[in-house]
């Protein structure tokens, strides 16, 4: 950017009756959008809890207490059938769930965007190949794949689960990115960038991607939510990482130990409720964000 040029002319007043500059416009509407504020606020609270929870928890997950005790002053959310403090497990579990969610979202986003941009920009045979690849991957049931791969591995870690989720959910990122790239690449400002001698990667990164920025943002948020849910379901089925506590594992244990039958609601409800809150807050924020980015959806 010609910084000097901008500085020289920064004092010239903006033309009348024009909308405010882009960044501040989003901020203006964003802060006024109830869904975004609520969703984001709740999510941030949960993240805060994930960070400080294990610190403020008076006990560790490995401490033993009375088996199956209801919530009390000593165990804020009671204990499970094995005598572990539920609150401590919850605090740890949220953290793990966020980690896996982030890992899954990032790997899916990276793979999906690279393939999507390449296919959308180049078109032709490369596009066909990527589409073929995408379609094949979509058809393979991820659960079955996880079972098969999992049976060959002795131990599974968070990294494995996160990357696996990423590598099985990137297709719909790629499709969305490809479609947007297709429509954007025929715009005249892309032609102008070509006429300025710019290379393809530069045009994709500087001209095309920023025009999809709001869309990409929304996609990543959705990925985050769905990764967390997927991880929890895998954990619930016992296909998760072999050596950690997460919300899904908590729910699995609660199920295996017939917690509901024994009226141990403090073991069953919290993990499910918290997981629901984590994902729902994201989705609500997402809807709000969509309204902020897309002026036509705003209610005046």
């Amino acid at each position, binding site marked *: *950017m*010609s910084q*000097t*040029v*901008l500085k*020289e*002319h*920064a004092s*010239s007043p*903006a*033309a009348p009756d*024009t*909308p405010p*500059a*882009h960044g501040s416009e989003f901020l203006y509407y964003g802060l006024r959008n109830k869904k975004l504020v609520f969703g984001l606020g709740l999510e941030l609270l949960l993240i805060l809890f994930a960070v400080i929870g294990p610190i403020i928890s008076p006990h560790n997950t490995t401490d033993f207490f009375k088996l199956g005790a209801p919530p009390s002053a000593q165990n804020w959310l009671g204990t499970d059938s094995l005598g572990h403090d539920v609150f401590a497990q919850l605090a740890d579990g949220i953290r793990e769930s966020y980690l896996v969610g982030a890992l899954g979202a990032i790997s899916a986003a990276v793979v999906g965007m690279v393939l999507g941009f390449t296919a959308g920009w180049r078109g032709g045979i490369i596009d066909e190949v990527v589409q073929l690849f995408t379609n094949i991957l979509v058809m393979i049931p991820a659960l079955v794949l996880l079972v098969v791969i999992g049976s060959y591995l002795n131990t599974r870690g968070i990294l494995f689960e996160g990357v696996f989720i990423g590598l099985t959910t990137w297709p719909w990122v790629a499709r969305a990115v490809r479609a947007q790239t297709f429509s954007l690449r025929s*715009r*005249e*400002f892309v*032609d*102008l*960038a*070509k*006429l*300025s*001698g*710019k*290379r393809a990667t530069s045009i994709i990164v500087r*001209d095309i991607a*920023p*025009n999809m*920025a709001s869309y990409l943002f929304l996609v990543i948020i959705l990925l985050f939510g769905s990764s967390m849910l997927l991880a929890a379901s895998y954990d619930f089925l016992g296909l998760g990482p072999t050596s950690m506590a997460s919300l899904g594992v908590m729910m699995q244990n609660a199920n295996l130990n017939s917690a509901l039958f024994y009226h141990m609601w403090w073991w069953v409800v919290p993990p499910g409720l918290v997981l629901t809150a984590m994902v729902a807050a994201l989705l609500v924020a997402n809807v709000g964000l969509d309204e902020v980015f897309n002026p036509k959806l705003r209610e005046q």
Partner: protein
Amino acid sequence: MSELSVHEVSKLYRGTARGGGFTLALRKVSFELKQGEVISLIGESGSGKTTLGKVILRLERPTSGAVTFGGKDIATYSQRGLREYYRFVQGVFQDPFSSYNPIYRADRVFDLVRDVYFAHVSGKDWNDKIDAALHAVALNPGDVLGKYPHQLSGGQQQRLLIARALLLDVRVLVADEIISMLDASTRVDVLNLLVSLKRAGLAILFITHDLSLGNYVSDRTIILRHGAIVEMGATPEVFGNPQHDYTKMLLSAVPELQKKWHHTALGPVAMPVSPGAEPVVRRDLRALLGGTRAVSSGKSAVALTLEPPVLHEFEPGHLVADAE
């Protein structure tokens, strides 16, 4: 001395209409553009004029034929060669607003050029260059620098794009319908700017569907129809003494302030042959490229081959095609 030479350029598109088929956008178009010359390329929608502009700017590749610049076929350029080409040959398009990336400020179009061509030029020298270019297009730097595209008028946007081209050593400008989206009062300013640039030695390919604009500004005129040249020559001759029926039809249909159309009351309006019918040629690709057999489609009223109608010299410099 020729700047740019277009030799038998053809462009075939795979059809997107129902039923597939091919579209012949350009059929062996040939002409030369000389230094300081303005050629108006006149045609209606579907004539192929925009495609020709894109082929010359190497934004599209011709199916056959070649565009030569400085004696070299532009299709053979490497990435670096292409960059050099763009130093001399630039384009400005119809919709000024969409040439700008809306999330950046308008003067980013200058920065794009700077990054590639003037990376070693100092800040102050660069600003001087910008000021000079803006001055050449009669824009006040204070009015346009630092603004977003939506804060500028169509005329300002268009002139800024021309200024961008002037930052390079442009010798050929492809102006594709650059006037049509501007208001009447700004059109004239941009037109007069083109005239002054022409007088300074710039060669311009002025693509338009508006005959009166073409007549005002150009030295030679090419009339394009269904991807082929039907008439070509010095502007006063083509407009003053049109030979091809299509040219005559176009001239008679132009609304003028002083002359009224000859309106026949009651009864169907006589429709000229061309409008609407999109020439879609089906199937026989080999026959098309082989070039001799006429392939007619059910939809089109005109049977098309790759071979354009033959051009005859009616008078020196004034070429007219046979009826198709």
